[in-house]
């Protein structure tokens, strides 16, 4: 569904990605793990058209989307939930969700999608008229994911959904991500620092280090890989 070949991204002369290649098959959850500054967010930003691609290609459903404007990429069915839960803090929860459906004109389907989102995240329904900036961190993250879903995407890019969130909510959010994949049938590219969690829900994983992919395997073998275990899984026993 999504194929990246030899992708280079740089910010004002400083290279963030030195030619990475990865593949996300339709209907799967693929994760990209790695430490700070490895280039995880840059990869997602390049895919969604926010960061400029220096060279290489990004192909989405057989269409070349390299360096296309972000709004055109969204229209093709790619949604990006950016890092640090960037919700529109001055708009209400409902307005945020409508901003996600910004490019859609099918009013009826939008309201049925809203209902589906409320069954996924009932908490959001309770807070519809509240300014998004007043939500808790976890609620904002749910809103960021829900907002991305409102564009009715085929592929969802999730950037660090566990960042700075209470552990109990992290569990909820991750089980929702699995539901979005299984029940709504969305393909997901998940970027995470919490490698343990990410490797548990994804089928395939890529390990990124300073702009290069150093490992690429099924999550099962990555979890037992000694290098991954010592670098990213810490003391915790991978289950």
């Amino acid at each position, binding site marked *: 569904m999504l194929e990246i070949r030899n992708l280079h991204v740089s910010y004002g002369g400083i290279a963030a990605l030195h030619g990475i290649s990865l593949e996300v098959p339709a209907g799967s959850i693929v994760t990209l793990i790695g430490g700070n500054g490895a280039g995880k967010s840059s990869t997602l*930003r390049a895919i*969604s*058209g*926010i960061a400029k691609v220096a060279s290489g290609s990004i192909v989405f459903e057989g269409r070349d989307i390299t360096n296309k*404007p*972000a*709004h055109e*990429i*969204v*229209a093709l069915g790619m*949604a*990006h*939930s*950016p890092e640090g839960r*960037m*919700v*529109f*803090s*001055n*708009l*209400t929860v409902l*307005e945020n969700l*409508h*901003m*996600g459906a*910004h*490019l859609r004109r099918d009013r009826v389907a939008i309201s049925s999608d809203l209902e589906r989102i409320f069954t996924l995240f009932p908490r959001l329904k*309770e*807070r519809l*008229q*509240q*300014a998004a*900036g*007043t939500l808790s961190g976890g609620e904002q993250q749910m809103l*960021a994911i829900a*907002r*991305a879903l409102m*564009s009715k995407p085929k592929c969802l890019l999730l950037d660090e959904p566990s960042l700075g969130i209470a552990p109990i909510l992290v569990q909820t959010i991750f089980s929702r991500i699995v539901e979005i994949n299984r029940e709504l049938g969305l393909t997901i590219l998940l970027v995470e620092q919490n490698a343990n969690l990410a490797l548990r829900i994804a089928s395939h994983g890529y390990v990124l280090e300073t702009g290069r992919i150093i490992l690429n395997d099924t999550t099962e073998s990555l979890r037992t890989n000694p290098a991954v275990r010592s670098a990213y899984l810490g003391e915790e026993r991978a289950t």
Partner: protein
Amino acid sequence: MKKHIAHLALVAGLAASVALYAIAPQLDDYAVNIFVLAGINIILAVSLNLVNGHTGQFSLGHAGFMAAGAYTSSIITLTLAPALASAPAWQAQAAFFSALLAGGLFASFCGFLVGVPSLRLRGDYLAIVTLGFGEIIRVVIQNTNALGGARGLEGIPPYTNLLWTFGIATVAIYVVASLVNSTYGRGFISVRDDEIAAEAMGINTTKYKVAAFVIGAFFAGLAGGLYAHFISYIAPEGFNFLKSVDVVVMVILGGMGSTPGVAAAAVLLTLMNELLRDFEQYRMIVFALLLIILMIVRPQGLLGNFQRRKRKAPQP
């Protein structure tokens, strides 16, 4: 619901403009003077608020757009003046209105010109570019003899009255308020809140930023035209950087992104300028002190509601 209120406000504002116009002959010239200046300031502040407040693009070039509108409309009415002198009043007023519109359109064209190259810039950098652009407009006028150069233009027919001023101010408030409260208009706020997230949602941030500049400049151009046809004399010096700062102060004092707030601040600052005349040479010091105190006591502005929108009681 919100729409009904906006339409109601539009009708009420227009009615109030007519009422003001009707009682104008009973008011002394000084009062009319203050009313008109307050109205022009409302237009300037509300239109700049669309750019600085709602869209979050810090512009310091509003006086430049005002100058573009003032000169365009003045040149038109001055050229037509000999023909209009003997024409019936309604024709003169129609010509004046067309000249105002032309001024607004030319100003919005200037807004487009400054909007496009500035899109890649944010915050301080954008402020400097818009500041430079405003100064360029002023310096070009200053060095163009056909526009009167540094001497300015004089003898501009005084067509501006309370009806025009408050009619246009009402329309400016209506347009900006209903734009921002519409589905389309929430795009402006999303660009301000988080540009990257807005882009990721498929919002064409470029389009919104240019639209804000173009609409903001259009009303600044109208305000410039009204000002020129009220004072009857314009010079490049009147549209310098300090004039832009005056408008920015109104926006910040009123509360970035609050249309009623900046309109109130525009009126308040116009009145304050007059009321403080008793302090004579200390006027500007008192004025500055009041601003400082206000900013300490209410940093979000008079009616600023951003980040502090009322929270509905959470349901269990």
